[in-house]
């Protein structure tokens, strides 16, 4: 085990930083109503979808970029310098996955995501999103046997328009915030999931996002609806090439859980973080929110955030149904010159709603890591419970860790508890491990994994292993 970890640690910084050479269908940089019309036309969307986008665009024009409260600093983003659409050229509609452009197939293989049906990941269905479009979705037929819809978003607009119209924007409205409005206007693809009543999804659903083209932004939109009594576990992974420029990723994820439904949403975010001097990297401004609309419903967010130059995301739960449950488990690691301002919101509306927040922030090198979380107990939320624990670990003396919880309680029967600690990896701990023959780098990854364990164990197996490796690689060179 220790040799394996060492090997991982010794590997190059960001091994996902290659680019793929494919023929592109790409828009010139810039954003206007016309650009939105072109995107909508490329996707052969119905007029209601275009109107919805234009509404988002008009709201975006009214909104200001949220600069004042997040603890992030970055150069202003020029929204007219971004390409809002880039897709690998496809000659015709794919009849089967075997017809996929071999270059793209190789890209996903290099990333450890084989898309050929015979080599499929055991028990994981994958939707592969390459720049602005979904290029492949596996296990579609198998899933459809259970009545499960797992579709690229653009296909869902055509195949399940009534579900899309009913739920799109029902959790994150177009005008929710600056980045959500931008996404509403220009989103290109993403995944759509519908689990029918009483169905327990027989496999993990997963989307793998890959930014490839330069100067492009990625604006995907994911919508998951778990109907009454259903269950789904959904995974999301992301990587991007190494480039000196910053690239914008502004996604929106909406989850809806009806009575007794459960959604487990896991993310391993590994966008390119920029180099050791802070050049390049993805700006990751993401709005993720789930609504526990039904009684006894449950939404659980687990995230491991190791990538991106800037991370701005607060996966949240609106606990509307009585007895509904929200969970947020997060590991955020900032090294190099990365900055993360991340956390969650738990809005308790229904009676006896409960939420748990476990956040582990690790700061190394010049990393800046902030936890920002809101727990709000509304007046009618009798017997609501929240427990939050936010721990920060510091490695080195150039980094920072910050905790900004907001607890707002309007009901006397609620019980809200918040705990936080900040500490460094102790020299005593390192020496103790070394005295038992464990090298310093192994000791650090041992301690970091111990620190994160409570969160990592929430991840599905394959992802947990992946996440542990990522934490080790991201910390390489941060110690000593």
């Amino acid at each position: 085990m220790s040799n394996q970890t060492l090997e991982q640690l010794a590997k190059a910084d960001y091994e996902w930083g290659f680019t793929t050479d494919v023929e592109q269908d790409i828009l010139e940089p810039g954003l206007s109503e016309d650009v939105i019309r072109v995107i909508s036309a490329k996707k052969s969307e119905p007029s209601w979808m275009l109107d919805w986008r234009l509404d988002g665009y008009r709201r975006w024009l009214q909104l200001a970029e949220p600069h004042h409260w997040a603890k992030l600093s970055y150069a202003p983003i020029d929204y007219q310098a971004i390409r809002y659409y880039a897709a690998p050229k496809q000659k015709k509609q794919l009849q089967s996955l075997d017809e996929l452009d071999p270059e793209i197939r190789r890209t996903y293989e290099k990333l450890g995501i084989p898309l050929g049906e015979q080599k499929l990941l055991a028990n994981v269905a994958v939707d592969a999103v390459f720049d602005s479009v979904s290029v492949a979705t596996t296990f579609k037929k198998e899933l459809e046997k259970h009545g499960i819809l797992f579709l690229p978003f653009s296909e869902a607009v055509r195949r399940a328009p009534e579900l899309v119209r009913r739920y799109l924007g029902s959790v994150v409205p177009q005008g929710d915030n600056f980045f959500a409005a931008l996404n509403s206007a220009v989103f290109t693809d993403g995944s759509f999931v519908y689990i029918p009543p009483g169905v327990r999804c027989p496999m993990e659903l997963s989307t793998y996002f890959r930014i490839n083209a330069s100067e492009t932004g990625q604006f995907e939109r994911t919508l998951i609806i778990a109907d009454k009594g259903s269950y789904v576990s959904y995974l999301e992974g992301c990587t991007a090439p190494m480039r000196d420029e910053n690239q914008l990723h502004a996604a929106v994820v909406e989850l809806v859980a009806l009575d007794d439904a459960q959604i487990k949403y896991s993310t391993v975010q590994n966008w390119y973080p920029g180099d050791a001097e802070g050049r390049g990297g993805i700006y990751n401004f993401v709005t993720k929110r789930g609504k526990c609309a039904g009684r006894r419903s449950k939404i659980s967010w687990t995230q491991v955030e190791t990538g991106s130059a800037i991370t701005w995301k607060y996966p949240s739960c609106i606990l509307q149904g009585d007895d509904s449950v929200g969970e947020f488990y997060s590991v955020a690691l900032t090294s190099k010159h990365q900055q993360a301002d991340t956390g969650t919101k738990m809005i308790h509306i229904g009676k006896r709603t409960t939420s748990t927040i476990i956040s582990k922030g690790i700061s190394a090198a010049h990393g800046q890591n902030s936890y920002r979380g809101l727990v709000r107990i509304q007046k009618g939320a009798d017997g609501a419970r929240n427990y939050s624990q936010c721990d920060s670990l510091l490695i080195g003396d150039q980094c920072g860790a910050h905790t900004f919880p907001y607890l707002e309680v309007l009901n006397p029967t609620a019980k809200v508890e918040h705990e936080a600690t900040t500490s460094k990896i102790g020299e005593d701990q390192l020496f103790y491990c070394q005295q038992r023959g464990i090298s310093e780098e192994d000791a650090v990854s041992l301690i970091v994994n111990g620190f994160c364990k409570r969160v990592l164990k929430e991840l599905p197996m394959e992802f947990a292993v992946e996440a542990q490796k990522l934490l080790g690689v991201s910390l390489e060179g941060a110690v000593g």
Partner: protein
Amino acid sequence: MTTPMLEIRDLHVRIDASGTGGTDGEAILRGIDLVLPAGEVHAIMGPNGSGKSTLAHVLAGKPGYEVTKGEVLFEGRDLLSIAPEGRARAGVFLAFQYPVEIPGVGNMYFLKQAVNAVRSHRGLEELDAMEFLSLAREKMKLVEMPEELAKRGVNEGFSGGEKKRNEILQMALLDPKLCLLDETDSGLDIDALRVIAGGVNALRGPARSMLLITHYQRLLDYIVPDHVHVLAGGRIVKSGGKELARELEDKGYGWLQAMRAPAG
């Protein structure tokens, strides 16, 4: 003459405060000479602040100390130039006075990491999970360690006695050549002391040497040393047989401190 397990020659040590922005500290060890042959158990006794723990820390390579003079040979090789984990892999084991808690890291997992790091250094096959578990179970009996403790994080929430048992368990698993036991008796009641001493005695052997560092003679009733050295003011001021410990118990350290050679 065979090479001794450990040979300390004129060792001078002071606190190295360069990392903390403070000024360098005063000398703590002021010329230690000691020879520990293979198979022997020596006790180092002395009043608080005499430098006993510093000696153990320096031998194990703890950062924060500066060796200003002298050398330390382990099986005839220079010990001080080796990194702490290298010393551990070569067979130097320190049982900590204050074992460190490492939250979230499972005790068994940690021990397996350590054992395999040491084994692979010695050219032995790494143990798989099952092999390790059966080895660990066997050694746990030695220190009467409840199975339940193995499942917790390293020393996390352990009582003082449990932590010390865990140290001796690690010692048994890592199979070291030189054991440094730093105040292993502190904070133990008599029953726990008996168990731990039993574990230590079981590990005595012709190829293993031990340095017992203690303030009290009590430990030496259970682990009988071949030699006793008294440390005061950073030097060994008296050496003798096991009866010296008894003498110290009766007379205290005062009469020895008067013997302390003038500080250099």
